[in-house]
């Protein structure tokens, strides 16, 4: 089976995000009100071959742990869905 995997990498809670803060500061001048807690992160997507969803998730999470996110400053969340094999 193939899975479409999306990994979101964001800064750990409590770690400042100057990029998010800068975006948030400019919002009132564009007429957007009531938007808070803007955080900027990174999105990594890929396709993964695995026997099943459990294995796909395990491999994707190991990849996050070893490469895609640095646990000192970042956290990663994994979303995945089977890829439809179209004839």
């Amino acid at each position: 089976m193939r899975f479409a995997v999306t990994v979101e990498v964001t800064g750990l809670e409590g770690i400042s995000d100057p990029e998010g803060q800068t975006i948030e500061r400019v919002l009132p001048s564009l007429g957007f009100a009531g938007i808070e807690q803007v955080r900027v992160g990174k999105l990594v997507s890929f396709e993964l071959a695995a026997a099943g969803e459990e294995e796909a998730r395990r491999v994707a999470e190991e990849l996050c742990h070893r490469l895609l996110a640095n646990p000192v400053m970042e956290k990663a969340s994994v979303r995945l869905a089977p890829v439809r094999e179209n004839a």
Partner: protein
Amino acid sequence: MSRLAVVVFPGSNCEHDVVAALERVGIEASLVWHQQDSLGQVDGIVLPGGFAHGDYLRPGAIARFSPVMTAVAEMARQGGPVVGICNGFQVLTEAGLLEGALRPNAGRRFICRDVTCEVRSIDSPLTVDCERGERLVLPINHNEGNFTCDEKTTRRLFEREQVVLTYTDNPNGSVGDIAGICNEGRNVVGLMPHPERASDALLGSADGLSLLSSLASFLVGKRAGRPAAARSAS
């Protein structure tokens, strides 16, 4: 004469400056491509500045998987000096050979200017010939120099005097004004400022020579059988 390996990753750009500056203090250095997994007979390793693998994902995130990093980790384990300058510091943190991480500068700007640093520990391969409290003018040249770790780790780094250099006027948001640290074994050291770019008065400062000649002394001491730990205890 001591021999050092200076590792070249795709995107490194300070390797020749490092070799030239090391020669000034009597250290023979040769360039080593990152695909090499063994370094032969060398007394220590320098990871120079630059943008290894384009800094893709995070600075150092890809470089840490290069074959040469096995030899770097082995040198670190054996107590030989391993020095990471700027991007090299980032590689060492990503590889887990030094604690913490280097995030984008607090002001979101690339910073390229001279800063004043204070020597906080003289028990490291780069500071054995310095005096505690000595101030050095050194250039920084980075986008991700904002040293980060949790509060507990910060406290421990200061308590164990693993903080080697601090900024007198924090340019990038680093916790505790940290500009350079060493590992617990005190043989692996990483710093964001570039000592090789301050190795001649013509370059604006020769203060980097204090750090590089310390490395030369450290190598001689090590070869005479006086590991850093024994030296600090005496």
